[in-house]
C-alpha cells in the first residue's frame, strides 16, 4: 500500500510540477482571496491582523477545492481514471498517494500565504511550532477529505459544483480548530492551542482511515 502511495504521489506531483497549474493558477487564486478579504475589511491593520488566522484558513480551504479538482482532472483526460483502476494499484495506496500529493501542494501554498498574511494583514508570527503543527495536521485532514469526496464527485457530470457542497460542510471543524490554534499562536499564547491541535489530529486520522477503507468502492462505483 505504501509503495503504491509513493508511486501515485510521485506521479501526481510530477504532473503538477510539469503543468504548473499550482504555480500559475492555485497560488495566484489564494493570493487573490487574501487581497479581496483585505479590500472587504478595509486597510486598517487593527481589523485585519486579528482576523488573519481565519482569513488564512478560508483561503486554504478554497484553494484545497482547486487542488482536489485538479488532482482528479488529471485522471479524467484520456480516461486515465480507468487506467488507474486497471493499473493493479491498491486503492488505499491510490488514496494515500493522491492525498499526499494534494497535501504537499497545500503546504507549499500555506508557506506563501503565511508570508501574505504577514505582509498584507500585519500579522505578527509567533508560536511557530503551533503554526507548523496546525498546518501539518489541518492540511492532512483537508487533503484526506478532499481526496475522499473528490473521487465521489469526479465520476459525476456535476463534479465542479458538487465537490464544494460535499467538502465545505465536512471541513468546518478543521476551519474552526485551525483558526483557533493559529489565533492562540499569533496572540502569543500557544499553550492555549493544545486542545484545538488535538481536534485537528483526530480529524486527520479519522478521515485518513475512512479514506483508506472507502476509496476503493468509491473509485469503482464513481
Amino acid at each position, binding site marked *: 500500500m505504501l509503495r503504491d502511495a509513493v508511486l501515485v504521489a510521485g506521479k501526481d506531483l510530477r504532473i503538477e510540477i510539469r503543468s504548473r497549474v499550482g504555480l500559475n493558477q492555485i497560488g495566484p487564486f489564494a493570493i487573490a482571496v487574501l487581497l479581496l478579504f483585505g479590500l472587504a475589511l478595509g486597510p486598517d491593520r487593527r481589523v485585519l491582523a486579528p482576523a488573519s488566522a481565519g482569513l488564512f484558513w478560508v483561503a486554504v480551504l478554497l484553494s484545497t477545492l482547486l487542488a482536489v479538482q485538479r488532482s482528479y482532472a488529471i485522471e479524467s483526460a484520456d480516461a*486515465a481514471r*480507468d487506467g488507474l483502476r486497471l493499473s493493479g494499484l491498491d486503492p488505499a495506496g491510490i488514496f494515500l498517494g493522491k492525498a499526499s500529493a494534494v497535501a504537499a501542494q497545500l503546504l507549499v501554498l500555506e508557506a506563501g500565504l503565511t508570508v501574505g498574511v504577514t505582509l498584507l494583514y500585519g500579522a505578527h508570527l509567533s508560536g511557530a511550532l503551533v503554526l507548523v503543527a496546525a498546518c501539518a495536521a489541518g492540511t492532512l485532514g483537508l487533503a484526506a477529505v478532499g481526496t475522499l469526496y473528490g473521487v465521489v464527485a469526479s465520476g459525476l457530470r456535476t463534479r465542479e459544483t458538487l465537490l464544494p457542497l460535499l467538502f465545505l460542510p465536512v471541513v468546518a471543524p478543521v476551519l474552526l480548530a485551525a483558526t483557533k490554534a493559529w489565533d492562540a499562536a499569533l496572540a502569543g499564547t500557544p499553550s492555549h492551542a493544545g486542545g484545538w491541535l488535538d481536534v485537528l489530529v483526530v480529524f486527520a486520522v479519522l478521515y485518513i482511515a475512512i479514506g483508506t477503507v472507502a476509496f476503493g468502492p468509491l473509485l469503482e462505483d464513481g
Partner: protein
Amino acid sequence: MAPAVRLHEAVALAGRFPLLAGASLEVGEGEVVHLRGPNGAGKTSVLKVLAGLLAVHSGEATVLGRDLVADRRAVRREIGMLGHQSFLYEELTVEENLRFAVRANRGVVTGIRPVLEQFGFAGRLASIPVGRCSAGQQRRASLAVLVARGARLWLLDEPHAGLDQDGRDLLDELLTGARAAGRTVVFASHELERAEAIADRVVHLAGGRVVEPPEPTGASDSPAPSAQAARQTISGPAVPVTEDPAHVA
C-alpha cells in the same frame, strides 16, 4: 482446462439500461477471439466486464479463474486493456507512462527500453509528453504499455483505429506473437479482413447478447463470417461451425 474467460447469462447495466442482456461466452486459454457486431451491440461492454470496469448485475463472470461478481478487481494485474482512449497521462512522457504502468503492476522497469523501441519510441521520442504525440503515436504508446505489463489476457477495443499502415501491421504481428506466446486475446474490431485473419474464432454480438452469425445476404456491408468462425449460443459455449459453404468467405 478451465476457460480463460467465461460469461454466463451476464447482465451489466448503465443505470437501468442493460448494456449486456444475458451474454454468454467462453474463451479458451491462448485463444484469439474477435467480437463482431454493429454499433451498440455490446462489444465494448463485454470487454469492460472482462476487465472488471463494469459490474455484472446478474449472471456469472469468471476471468482467469477469478470470479468477477465477487471481486472485479482481482484480475486486473493479469489483464491489459486497450480502449478507445489512451489511459495515459498527457503531461508524462511516453517512457514515464510506461514506467508508471509497469511499477503499478509490480513489474521491473529494466525491460521497457526494448518495448519502447519496438513501438517506435527510440531515443528522444520516448521523452516526449504523451499530450504532444499524434493520435497514432498515443495509440502505439498504449500498446507499448499493454506489452510492457506482460498481461495474460489482452482486451482490445478497436485496436486498429488511429494507426497508420505500419502501425496496423505492427499490431497484427503483435497479436500473432501473442497467440504464439499463449496469451488470450479478446478484441473488437471493424477492420474485418485484418481481424479475421488473426482471430481463431468470431463471436457475434447484438443487443447485448452473443448471437448466431447473421446469414450472408450478399448485399451486406460486412463480409460473411470466415470458415474459422464458430457459432455461439446465448446459453452455451462455442459450437464449432461445420463446413457450411454459405459461411465461407
